[in-house]
């Protein structure tokens, strides 16, 4: 399904396409900035926000340093609780495990609440290919599912769609009135549509926000209660999680639940923070623990702490590049700055453009509730990609030449002077839109006759 939505080449090209509709880009930017501002207000309403971030970061630091132990402790407690635990080394194994459980129960359709892990593993595509009907029950995810698109944001999957576009999709798929775009009306239609799906599904898949080592239980956070509706009504519940979702103790939730929703949307807490410990009577509960590149990332000294991420999306909302390029331009399940430091770990060649889709402004690092130094990691990924040969050869050659030129003061001065002279004599060349991308939408600076150094030699040096 996702394959039908082909993303044009790299981030810069996709962003250019996104920006062709400037009015939409303005609206997208404002919608996300509104959430960023809501987050700012929420962070100021509780004492010691910065201390809370530091605490969360340190708890996760401990988790990542002892992940093997915590995972074993978690598994043992989960098994004791009666949860069936599965381990998947990669996306393919994860998908196979999920399919096996489904087929063992002879199930043809299921409901799924939001899980970025299953997006990362392309589970929906895989299940569809195997004849299983998957209904995404998060409203935003249902919208993009009907549109045959991947989510463009990890918390707000259809933030790139206007209500009129949602109205059109619902008219086609759910039979709402043509032209209707009232959010209350559309939401009610979706609610009725999904209710029928919940009631008739024998299996529910959910994600996991936090898995607690000491209890063997896990927490799923939603605003719509759709994870609960699915999991409580179905005979089988499969929860899928990345292995980094572990926290040591239940009391740590007091830190993470306070950070998560405030960072994500500016809410004090998600409407539903549901704690699952064991299957209900007559029910079956499965948990799939997925590595899929995480232990490789854990071994990267400069990048391991990206695994602290709790998927709040704050870095995405604040990113001035994301707001003006849209989530699909990142061509990876997780978009924005955090996606740009996770994606190269999965495939450097395919995702080599993403660490460059940033001005390194650093706002992402400042909003991160677990203090991942995102912008520093973007810089460091650029070095890795340069070293490993994933930066275009033309860029490499020009940087090499520039480096040599700037290491030589005489050459630098000759180049500077001749460059300025050229610009003065042939302004049309410098302002040529086809040859100089700067000049497409910007004027070039007016070149002065003399450099500062020239001026200094003339006016200052003689007085020394």
């Amino acid at each position, binding site marked *: 399904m996702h394959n039908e939505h082909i993303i044009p080449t790299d981030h810069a090209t996709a962003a250019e396409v996104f*920006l062709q509709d400037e009015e939409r880009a303005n609206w997208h930017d404002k919608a996300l900035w509104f959430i960023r501002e809501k987050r*700012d207000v929420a962070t100021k309403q509780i004492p010691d926000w910065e201390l809370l971030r530091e605490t969360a970061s340190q708890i996760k630091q401990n988790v990542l340093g002892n992940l093997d132990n915590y995972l074993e402790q978690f598994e043992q407690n989960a098994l004791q609780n009666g949860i069936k635990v599965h381990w998947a080394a990669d996306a393919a194994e994860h998908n196979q495990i999920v399919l096996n459980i489904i087929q063992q129960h002879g199930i043809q359709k299921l409901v799924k609440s939001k899980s970025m892990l299953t997006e990362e593993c392309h589970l929906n595509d895989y299940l569809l290919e195997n004849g299983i009907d998957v209904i995404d029950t998060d409203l935003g995810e249902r919208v993009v599912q009907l549109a045959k698109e991947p989510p463009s944001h990890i918390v707000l999957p259809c933030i790139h769609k206007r209500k009129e576009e949602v109205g059109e999709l619902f008219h086609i798929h759910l039979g709402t009135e043509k032209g209707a775009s009232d959010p209350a009306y559309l939401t009610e239609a979706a609610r009725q549509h999904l209710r029928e799906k919940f009631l008739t599904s024998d299996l529910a898949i959910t994600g996991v926000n936090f898995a607690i080592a000491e209890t063997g239980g896990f927490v799923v956070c939603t605003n719509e209660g759709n994870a609960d509706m699915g999991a409580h009504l179905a005979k089988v519940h499969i929860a899928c999680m990345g292995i980094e979702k572990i926290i040591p103790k239940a009391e740590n939730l007091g830190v993470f639940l306070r950070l998560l929703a405030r960072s994500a949307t500016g809410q004090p807490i998600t409407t539903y923070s549901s704690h699952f410990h064991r299957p209900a009577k007559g029910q079956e509960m499965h948990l799939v623990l997925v590595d899929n590149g995480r232990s490789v990332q854990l071994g990267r000294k400069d990048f391991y702490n990206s695994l602290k991420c709790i998927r709040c999306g704050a870095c995405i909302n604040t990113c001035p590049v994301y707001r003006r390029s849209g989530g699909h331009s990142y061509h990876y399940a997780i978009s924005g700055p955090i996606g740009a430091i996770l994606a190269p770990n999965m495939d450097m060649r395919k995702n080599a453009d993403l660490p460059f889709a940033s001005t390194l402004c650093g706002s992402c690092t400042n909003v991160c509730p677990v203090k991942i130094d995102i912008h520093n990691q973007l810089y460091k990924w650029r070095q890795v990609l340069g070293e490993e040969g994933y*930066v275009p050869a033309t860029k490499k050659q020009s*940087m090499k030449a520039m480096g040599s030129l700037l290491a030589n003061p005489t050459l630098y001065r000759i180049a500077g002077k001749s460059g*300025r002279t050229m610009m003065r004599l042939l302004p049309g060349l410098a302002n040529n839109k086809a040859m100089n991308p700067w000049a497409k*939408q910007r004027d070039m600076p007016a070149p002065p006759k003399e450099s500062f150094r020239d001026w200094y030699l003339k006016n200052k040096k003689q007085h020394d």
Partner: protein
Amino acid sequence: MKVGLFIPCYVDQFYPQVAIATLQLLEKLGLDVDYPLNQTCCGQPMANSGFEKYAKGCDALFTKNFAQYDYIVSPSGSCVLHVKEHLHDDKNPAEAKHIQSRIYELCEFLTDILQIKDLDARFPHKVGFHISCHGQRGLHLSQMSELVAEDFSKPGYLLNMVKDLELIPLNRKDECCGFGGTFCVSEEAVSVKMGKDRVQDHLQHQAEYITGGDMSCLMHLEGILRRQKSPVKVVHIAEILNGSYA
């Protein structure tokens, strides 16, 4: 106190008046300022493109030029941050370290080291201040909008000393302008859109001038203003503080 003046390459070549203002301002404040004649660039363009290794020549040259000074001062937060975070010189590591601990962006040098209390400058205009990201989030020149912390602004403190200058408010006080070094051409569409949005915020609040601590960001905003045929001008903060803007 011996001060070495570091003028970024693009300022040397395109905005000599900014360098002149910086030099004059420091000299007016009674400092003994040297301009090492063989300086070029901090190496940031190569490093930010993923090629720190091609910046090694720049790094060695930088160390050679500036190791002898008590303080190194520059009218650019971005170049200063790059030196602070990424200057490597395998042959002279102690000298490189000395430079990293002694290099200052102009505004923070005035407020933190010289601790100036007043200035002889007048600028009777409505001015929008663009805080560049590397100065803001790298050097902490003012309170960052993302953090819960006390409000302060080093450049704002200095601009408040300028007679008749009216500092306008902005809707987004520290949003990136989209220059981003090579980003400005490799992601041309996003870069320009970010710049247009920044310009709009200043225009909406009736700025006559946009000032800032980094000429690179201002060059980008200026390019957009000129293309839009806007009468609004850009001016580096050094020119305002020096009272030399013509």
